[in-house]
């Protein structure tokens, strides 16, 4: 099961300190950790929400750091891409997986599978024993759709103003956080449904 899906920045932002990441979209699939564990029982719902947000920020920061270090080590120089080059941009995207130890930030261990496309990264936080091959494939597919449907290679503001598109995408390709074994026909069928929604 996927714990959450994030879209966040991996470029320096003037309003934030170095290494901080701006979370543009987040969707958590699990119920609140506080409901299930004995921890944090004394917190109010507001505080729990804040805690959830902080945990996601921690994940985004860790992925940001991983992306920066990977790019630095590879000596990669990023060239600005224009709309229309989605397929190319995805092919050259950096991908990786970061181990999130138990307690940092989630109660149990998790793996953050990420795909960094220029200044944005798409991250799936999975359970540690998850089928990472499947997670990787699903993430690529999700990223491609996000890039295309939200026109992320352009201004990129649509991810903030049209977040329902990502919700619908997730409800088909990652329902309740379930990774699906979709061959190209099944995927096509779901994509048609999604496209129908997007065109409204």
């Amino acid at each position: 099961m996927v714990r959450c899906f994030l879209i966040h920045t991996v470029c320096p932002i003037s309003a934030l300190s170095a290494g901080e990441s701006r979370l543009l979209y987040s969707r958590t699939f699990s119920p609140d950790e506080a409901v299930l564990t004995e921890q944090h029982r004394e917190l109010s719902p507001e505080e729990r929400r804040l805690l959830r947000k902080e945990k996601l920020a921690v994940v985004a920061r860790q992925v940001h750091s991983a992306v920066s270090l990977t790019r630095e080590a590879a000596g990669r120089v990023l060239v600005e891409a224009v709309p229309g080059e989605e397929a190319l941009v995805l092919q050259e995207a950096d991908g990786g997986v970061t181990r999130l130890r138990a307690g940092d930030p989630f109660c149990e261990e998790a793996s953050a599978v990420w795909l960094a496309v220029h200044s944005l990264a798409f991250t799936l936080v999975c359970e540690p024993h998850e089928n990472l091959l499947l997670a990787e494939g699903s993430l690529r597919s999700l990223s491609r759709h996000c890039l295309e449907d939200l026109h992320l290679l352009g201004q990129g503001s649509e991810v903030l103003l049209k977040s329902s598109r990502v919700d619908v995408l997730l409800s088909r390709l990652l329902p309740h956080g379930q990774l699906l074994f979709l061959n190209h026909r099944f995927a096509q069928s779901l994509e048609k449904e999604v496209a129908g929604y997007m065109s409204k």
Partner: protein
Amino acid sequence: MYSHGSESLIRQAREIQDSELQKFYSRLVKLLQFKEVSHELVDSLHRLYLILFANKYSRTLPSELQQNLVPLLSSPSEQLQVLSSAVLRETLPPCGEEKNIAQLNSHAAALLLSQAGSKDDLSDLCAQIIRSLEIRPSDGPTPSLMHTLPFVNSILTHCPECLTADHVILLSKKLVDWLRYASIMQVGGASSGGFFSGSRSRQPAPIAELDGTVSGDFFTVLCVGQGFTEDQWMNVYSFSMLRHWLLTYRGVSNDSMVVDAANRLQLSLSFSHSLSNDDRSEVDGSVVSMVSATSSSSRLLSPKERLREKAFQYCLRLIEQCDRKALKKTDTDLQKACLVEAVCILDVLCAEDPSLVYRVFPCIKALFGRLSSDLSFARVLLPAAQFYLNHGEMAAVDCESVWKLVFSQFPAELFNDPFLAHDFLRFLRLNLEGLQRAAPHFTRYFPNFLKFLAWDSPATLEDFVDLLPSLVTAGSAVELLHTLLDLPCLSATLVLQLRSTSLPISDSGSRGLLSLDAFRNPTFRGLFLFLLRTEAGSGDTIERLSTLHSLLAESAEWPRVVHCAQTVPVLLHIYFNTVITVADEKLLAHLILAMLERSNLLLNMPTYCKEIHRVFSSQLVRLCKLHPSLVVDQSQELLEFAGTTANVYSKEEVYTHVVWVLGEYLSLSSDSRCSVRLITSCFESLEAVLFEVTSSAPPPGSVCPAPKVITTLMSALAKLASRSHDLIPRVSLFLSKLRNVTKGGSVPWCSDEEDMVAIVTRGEELWSLLKTPGVAQSVLTPPPYVNAPRWHRDANLALPLQLRALTALTHSP
């Protein structure tokens, strides 16, 4: 991609004024009351979501607005469902309000899941969803089943006790139906025929395999068709959650033994009826293939056991299907993912029912044989290796070839694949105990494992912090130390190796030209081959290390090498923490010598040498503290090091600690072999160095030694003198000379006023101490029991205990 526009949107959302916000809310309420899906409504809902999402601190919506949003969850327009679910998820759930949502679509269910306040809420929700699975077509229009299994899986992940035993039985039966007995006909897709195709319906065609051939067995995720029926979709959803289901309910046979027996009885009773509608598994219309034919009779098994049997058949069929060449690349990737999943499921099944091992092993073995020569399937072979590890003993299979492939080949050729690195290190971490039992020689492959670290240290460091202790063995400890110290060189070599294979030999425009030439040069081949070795045991290190370091000099600035160098001190600390538990004195002596030797022989990187020296210093002191006799044992080498004045300038930190160690532990109380002659010769070496250092300026290119070096030397001399009183006059003479020299103003060997004061003060303290040799001896060479006082811990003498005892005695009746 991320622009000022986005940044300002977020700022606006956060800084919206309260009055404006209230106006926005009322406008929105009005729009909602119109009950039509206008563009303005959708836009406003999106903006509301952004306002809520962009804030860390939650906002409460006015209750009127909230009340108007809830009905949208059941709206016929999916857009409104999605938006209302998203908005409500970002707000706090209203207390005490019952959410009665008639039809649980995917978005409403998601909201209820995220806002569940307790496990009871989750149980109720779960029960509601599972009930929808039982609705028969005759009862009215059935809601879409599509999101039910993922939902159940989500609950299963976080709160498995929310499913009752009945639910489990029901779902097991349903899963069996969907996995094994889904329709094998295609739903005709939209006819793309032309004008003349007419309204004749097409004959339903059978489903096909990924390579285009017609399918000859039951439906799986690797079957394609123009369109799909609902049960074929459920087949996909069922398989997607199957492993997790089996993992959750394995070994739960204890309390369900009774249930199982009852089920058997029920099953046998039900067979006396004719075909019932809801148990389609009685109608086996699929074409029988080899897989199904070899399955055991599933007539009298409990639902759980039947599910296991069907899961087994499904996995075998998948493995068979993955042998076909898919026409599309995404399908090839899916095949790999399916292989991993199938092998993992078979592993779980065999763990629960060991009798399956004999049926499964031939299949896994064949798979391994087929894929072992193709490194692109490495990530599939790791679960297979896990299977061998878990069940190889039981099947009495020789696993040597598996370990050879996994430990010897994978790291050497695939070190730069981040996903394989993650999977591989995870495999090692989780199976340390098992490997130590089944393949204890795996520790020999540490040079290979460290390639993952050398290539991508930030991503793999955490794993190595966990793994390194297991790789430290007495037999290979020295080699491991050298390997750790040369990790930056390994990093550089791996970079060169990849560059060498990807760039043509005559390419002269590339960076790193010198080191690349050296890499390709046959004269230096041996050096690089040693670094790239896969197994330990062929020597601790190489003789021409300094040559290697100079060849790789330019790599000191490569980011990958720099990242790697930053991890070495941490690893060294972990190494030493472990090595002291497995090493005897002889080995520790060897390590001390290695440290002294290597303090000179490190890749020349600015902070790297300093950091390593720091580690060496602290570890040297620690080892000597644990085994003081080591100092006397290795006195010759230590004296050689301490007697070389150049070391004061080039390895200041290590030098200081060597001198300290000599001063502290070169005594009779540490080791009975310590003779007066030894003390005297040590004294003379140190004295000579001290004279030299305090009589002239530092050599060109070096800085003045830190005061700590001088004071440590002086203290060491004083300590040695206190053990052999003939030496005291010499020390005293030196110290008084020192005082006189410094009175005359600045000296060439000390630039700072305060440092000078510190040195002189220490000198005076020692001088006055040495005036009374007896006192000096007790202060500077205290007997061991002084440093480890025991009497304070003796409970019998503790005052409070005495008092309590007396009180108890005197106050007892």
